[in-house]
């Protein structure tokens, strides 16, 4: 048994790695400029840089010796002068796709004070003469040079009597350890159990999650258990009255329940039951009474697909030999159903139940925000709407990890219940 459990844990590891990689790819690689997503484009470059610094986003993605810096953003002079338009000492010429620095001028294109502990590197394609970051540049023809300087030095331009034409200019931060990447930073952060800081709420994400878990569970656990009991009972009714009017009606009814949009349940429930008839409080999280309506809506909205699922499970069992034997020796129909079939259908039921556990933790996104229950679903919706990257990423990641773990638990339960499983 122990060997089997260890084997399953070992098989689980690649999925855990996959989940971590996938969240990384989604947010860091596909997301691109997370600071712009989280804070919009109207904040200063410096605050974006500190956002990056705090989350390790100013490092190379996977591997690399150079990283971009927000202090100077790469510009393609063939498409226009970009930010150079605002600098009076520089004249842009579309013809040569270059900017020209006037004689006897000095200015720095670097937007804010660089980190004094780092080394930086300019890559410049130029013609003419001048000084950049304290280094003399002089060439008649177009020439590309790399200039390395320290963060505490002045990285700006100055010219004497000649003009300096610039065709391309790039600023890169020199990364001391090429493996010091965003991926490594992310993994290290997770190892420490640090889930980041919420940008909009200014609190550590782990604290927000800890605060939200109880309200979420107080909503989802009743939904879950009531839902399982009601739908298993109804599916047994289906199996009992198989191929009669009652069975067909229940099947149609569950398809109809499935086809009603989740939003409609919530809006209609809140409007008709709570507002019009005053049977429940409309909004809030103060006592158990406030949970009654959201729980009712949650149960009803999940009922359709659950009845269908359990009905299929029960009917699958109905054709097995042991059922025929039981009938043949004269066991009554209710006894066959509720004792023989139900016991044997336990394995698919357990799977379905355990697999649903991770979804308990995220709560119900919409139910919580509609009824003002301060749980993780409420937190999640708000984080999505305010583009709070760290909160969303932590919720996705933990949801996925919980799913992986409950998969493992299901398999172990299986092996305990049915020793043949281990042999596969």
């Amino acid at each position, binding site marked *: 048994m122990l060997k089997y459990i260890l084997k399953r844990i070992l098989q689980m590891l*690649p*999925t855990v790695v*996959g*989940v971590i*990689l*996938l969240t990384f790819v*989604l*947010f860091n690689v*596909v*997301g691109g400029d997370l600071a712009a*997503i989280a804070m919009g484009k109207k904040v200063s470059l410096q605050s974006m840089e500190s956002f990056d610094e705090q989350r390790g986003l100013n490092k190379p993605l996977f591997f690399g010796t150079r990283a971009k810096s927000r202090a100077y953003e790469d510009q393609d002079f063939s498409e226009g002068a970009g930010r150079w338009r605002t600098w009076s000492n520089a004249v842009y010429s579309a013809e040569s796709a270059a900017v020209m620095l006037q004689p006897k001028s000095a200015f720095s294109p670097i937007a804010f004070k660089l980190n004094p502990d780092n080394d930086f590197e300019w890559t410049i394609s130029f013609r003419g003469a001048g000084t950049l970051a304290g280094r003399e540049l002089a060439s008649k023809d177009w020439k590309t040079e790399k200039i390395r300087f320290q963060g505490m030095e002045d990285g700006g331009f100055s010219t004497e009597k000649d003009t300096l034409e610039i065709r391309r200019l790039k600023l890169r931060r020199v990364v001391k350890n090429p493996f010091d990447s965003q991926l490594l930073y992310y993994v290290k952060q997770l190892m420490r159990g640090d889930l980041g800081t919420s940008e909009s709420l200014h609190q550590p994400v782990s604290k927000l999650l800890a605060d939200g878990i109880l309200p979420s569970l107080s909503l989802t656990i009743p939904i879950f258990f009531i839902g399982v009991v009601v739908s298993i009972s109804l599916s047994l009714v289906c199996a009992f009255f198989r191929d009669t009017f009652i069975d067909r009606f229940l099947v149609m009814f569950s*398809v*109809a329940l*499935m*086809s*009603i*949009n*989740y*939003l*409609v349940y919530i*809006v*209609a429930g809140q*409007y008709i039951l709570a*507002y019009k008839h005053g049977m429940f409080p409309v909004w809030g999280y103060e006592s158990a009474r406030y949970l009654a309506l959201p729980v009712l809506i949650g149960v009803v909205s999940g009922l359709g697909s659950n009845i269908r699922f359990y009905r299929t499970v029960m009917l699958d069992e109905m054709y097995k030999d042991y059922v025929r034997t039981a009938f043949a020796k004269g066991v009554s129909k209710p006894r066959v159903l509720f004792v023989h079939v139900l016991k044997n259908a336990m394995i698919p039921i357990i799977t379905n139940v355990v697999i649903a556990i*991770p*979804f308990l933790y*995220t709560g119900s*996104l*919409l139910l919580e925000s509609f009824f003002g229950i301060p749980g993780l679903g409420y937190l*999640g*919706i708000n984080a*999505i*709407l305010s*583009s709070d990257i760290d909160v*969303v*990423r932590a*919720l*996705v990641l933990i*949801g*996925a*990890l919980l*799913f*992986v773990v409950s*998969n493992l638990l299901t398999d172990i339960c299986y092996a305990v219940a049915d020793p043949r499983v281990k042999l596969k």
Partner: protein
Amino acid sequence: MNMERNQSLWGDAWQRLKKNRIAMACLSLVVLFTVLAVYGEVLYRYHDIKDTTPAYQNTDLDMAFKAPSSKHWMGTDGLGRDVMARLVQGVSIAYKVGIITSLIAIPIGVFFGCIAGYFGGKVDDFVVWLYSTFASMPGLLFILAIAMVVGKGLLGIYLGIGLTTWVGICRLMRGEVIKHKGQTYVLAAQALGLSSGRIIFRHILPNVMHVIIVTFTLRFPAAVGTEVFLSFLGIGVQDQPSWGLMINSARMRLWQGIWWEMTFVTLAVFLLVLAFNLLGDALRDALDPRLND
């Protein structure tokens, strides 16, 4: 011989489907919705090219919140726009979401499922790893995260739904291909020296086509429902009359007794989803011989 068998399979299925009255009713409903969707899309393109304001965007504040009448069969909304015209436009958005997300999810799922089932070994291990990773992601939250990262609008919705829902079909296809791999027609094709790609996509794929069709019919309503949800949250469609946006604006007015927009939109969503769900079930019964007693 292959062709003959094929035709009789589809012919058989059609005969069985025709006998099912509920399925035929759903099929006509689906056809009606399809016609409305095409009409809405043509109208949108026409006004887009001509650069004119289509009727469903015409605002008339004097006509705001009018109950259904002979002029506006489904009443008007808060800006005096005709609810019915916007509803029809919503059908075309729902269809676009259903179809484009399928065009993303189904090819990915079919491709990975086929190669995993056919080649087995390392390829299979990789594909199983890939889909278990995607399957572990918390569904709706993952879609929301993708939509957030990609940005507001339809593109985010397409990618969010498309990139998360290929897992189901991938699993199904993998299972089906494994079943077919050992059959004599595949062994014969291998003996003739046909390439693996040809065997998978020309020989096995047509034989498992019914799985794809049923999956499409059943995932279509799910995609529509998710779009309604995302647009409702303000992450999806921005300036077109999507059902989610209509529900969102109607929800506020419901408290003042403006019931018509809410009622008709939810009815439309319900009918579309119900028709596809029932049709999908009937198709599965008609196409899958294993379920025939």
